[in-house]
Structure formats: structure tokens, C-alpha cells
């Protein structure tokens, strides 16, 4: 049952965007319209889940036995970079339609803090393999959910009057703050 609560908290109360501030750059930058928000979200989901599983094995079967845990930051970022490259090549070859939808966002993902952040959280929280998969999946669903809701809100914001200095980033951040308040309410019930 712990796994179910882990899944729910990672989607809602421990949402990576709204409580851990991971992946803010694409969140305010890309999510201008629904479609690109969804594309980015899907690409991130894929990379987070696959790279979490991969780094779990690398961390437990290579880094810990050889006592080189201090290299984890370098190793993890390399894993992400090569994985993103690999997914792009495979996608272009076998799923050209999917590549057309997500291809633009894939290179950006290497430097997306959400991916490295989730991987580091897995390690910091000492999750086992199943927990790692559940947490990675839940976090990316949370990412997808928030980025989608946010892109729809943002379309509404654009058609409404806002003080000039507060357009774009400031209003996006304040909106995110209000969303965070709503999401955090799930803790207290």
C-alpha cells in the first residue's frame, strides 16, 4: 500500500514543479500553448522513467561496489545526455511521427533539472527498484499534469489585462504560486 501512497504524493503533494521547483525553465518557457506543453511533458516523462531505472542499476551495481559514489553527479548527467541522444536516434528511425511531435524538445531535456532532480531524489531517499520506478513515473505524471493545467491557464492569462511589467515571467510565477497553494492543500486535507 505504501507504493500507492508514494505514487499519489509524488503526483500531488510532492509535485516536482510546485514543491521541489524542478523543471521550472520549460514550465514557464515552453508551456505557452497546450500542444507544446504536452509534447514537452511527454518527452520528459519518457526520459525521467527510463533514466531512473538505468541510473538505479548503475548506482547499485557499479558506483557502490567500486566505492566511487562521489562521481555520481558526473555519471548521472552523462547517462541522461547519452540516453536523450539515443532516444532521439531510435525515435527518428522507428517512430518518425512521434519524433516530429517531440523531437524539438528532446535536446532541451538534457539540461532539464527535473530529470537529474528525480534521479538524485531517488538516491537521496534510498528508494529500491520498485519505489524508484513508481516515484519516477508519479513525478513525471505530476510534471505532465501541472504543465498541462498551467498551459491552459496561461492561454486565459494572455487574453486578460495585466500590468505591463508583470507580463510573462512574473505573472507566470505568481500563477504557479497560487497553484502551489492549491496543491499543498492536499497535505492538510
Amino acid at each position, binding site marked *: 500500500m505504501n507504493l500507492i501512497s508514494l505514487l499519489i504524493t509524488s503526483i500531488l503533494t510532492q509535485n516536482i514543479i*510546485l*514543491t*521541489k*521547483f*524542478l*523543471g*521550472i*525553465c520549460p514550465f*514557464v518557457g515552453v508551456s505557452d500553448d497546450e500542444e507544446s506543453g504536452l509534447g514537452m511533458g511527454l518527452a520528459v516523462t519518457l526520459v525521467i522513467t527510463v533514466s531512473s531505472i538505468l541510473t538505479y542499476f548503475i548506482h547499485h551495481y557499479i558506483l557502490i561496489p567500486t566505492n566511487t559514489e*562521489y*562521481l*555520481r*553527479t*558526473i555519471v548521472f*548527467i*552523462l547517462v541522461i*545526455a*547519452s540516453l536523450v541522444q539515443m532516444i532521439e536516434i531510435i525515435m527518428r528511425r522507428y517512430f518518425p511521427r512521434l519524433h516530429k511531435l517531440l523531437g524539438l524538445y528532446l*535536446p532541451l531535456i*538534457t*539540461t*532539464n*533539472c527535473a530529470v*537529474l*532532480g528525480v534521479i*538524485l*531524489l531517488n538516491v*537521496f531517499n534510498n528508494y529500491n527498484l520498485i519505489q524508484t520506478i513508481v516515484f519516477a513515473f508519479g513525478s513525471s505524471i505530476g510534471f505532465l499534469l501541472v504543465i498541462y493545467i498551467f498551459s491552459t491557464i496561461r492561454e486565459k492569462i494572455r487574453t486578460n*489585462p*495585466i*500590468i*505591463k*511589467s*508583470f*507580463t510573462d*515571467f*512574473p*505573472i*507566470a*510565477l*505568481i500563477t*504557479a*504560486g*497560487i497553484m*502551489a*497553494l492549491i496543491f*499543498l492543500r492536499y497535505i492538510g486535507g
Partner: protein
Amino acid sequence: MKKKTFSFLGEILNENPLFVSSLGMCSALAITLTFENSLMMGLSVLFVLMGSNLIVSLISKWVAEEIRIPAFIVVIATFVTILELLMKTYVPSLFQALGIYLPLIVVNCIILGRALSFASKNKIKASILDGLKAGLGFTFALILLGTVREVLGNNQITFMDKISPLTGYIAKYQILPVNDIIPNKLFLSPAGAFITLGLLIGIIKAIRNRGGKDELN
């Protein structure tokens, strides 16, 4: 000379990575709970920025165009690892407090941004100076955000607490007598972080274009 220093300061404010270009928001929002954390995070980014700018400007001649980003990321990650090891040894409580946001400096857009857009095309001295400028600007922004959040949320400023094993002092100051102000914990929550940063960026934007009229869009 004086004019030069002045323009240097002006650039720190006018080209501020956080307030003007909205880069590096991840760490800016997460660790600005106290003045001390903000300052230390700022200095960490400053260290990594200057180090990576130095190395990138040295090696960029020999790095092929296609592997630029991964190569530079490894340079950045190396400096972050050095910093992690130092901090873990000398100030473990600060290491704990910064948590995942210390290794996350690797993906801080400011650092890769400066490496790609400046250090890879310029000489060593200019690159280090550029790193110093961007790093100081980021540190300033973090301190401002951290101070506002800590004063409003906790009615105090922490100068030295986590780094006290190194300096030997603990310095925390209350700003107002407790009865006068009830600290609002909202500012210490994630929601408060978003709202405070949003308001700060908006206010700074308004000050910067005070020449023009600030009207409804």
C-alpha cells in the same frame, strides 16, 4: 578606473541572470529560505561559473561542434563534484541543507549558457571576468530573495549558522520585536517562493522601465 567599476556594477544589475533573463530559477526558488543559504548557494554557483568558464575557454578550440554540450556539461559537473566533496568534508550541515540543489548546479542554465555563449568564444581573462559578473549578479539576486523571504516568513536574518563550524560564530538577528509583527510562514513555503520571486521580478522590471508608462497590457 572608477567609471569602470561603476559600469561593472551596473552590468551586474542590468544583465542580472535571475531578475532580467529569468535563468537559474530552480535553485533560486528552492534554497532561499535563509540569508545564509542564499549567499552560500550564490557563492557555489559563482565558483562553478568561474571555474567552468576558465576551462571552457581553454579547451573550446579542441572540442568538436557536435559534442560541445556534453563536453561542457562534464566540465561543469567536475567543478560541482569538487565543491560537493569540499562542502561534505568541511561544512556537512550546509551540505545537508542544500541537498539535491547542490548537484543540480550542473543543470543550472546560467552556467551552460555562459559557457556556450561567452567562454567558448573568448579569451581566458575575459571569460573569468564574465563568470565573476554573472555569478555576482546571481548571488545578489539570491540574497535579495532570501532576505525578503526570511524577514517576512521568520522575522530574522541568519548570517552564520550552518557554516559556524568553519567560522566559529553563530549570527542570527531578529528584525522586529516579536509582538509587532506576526511572521507569515507562507513566505517560507514553496507557494511563497513563487509569489515572492514573481513580485520581485515584476517590481524590478517596473523600476527598469520607469521611463516608459506602466499601463495595462
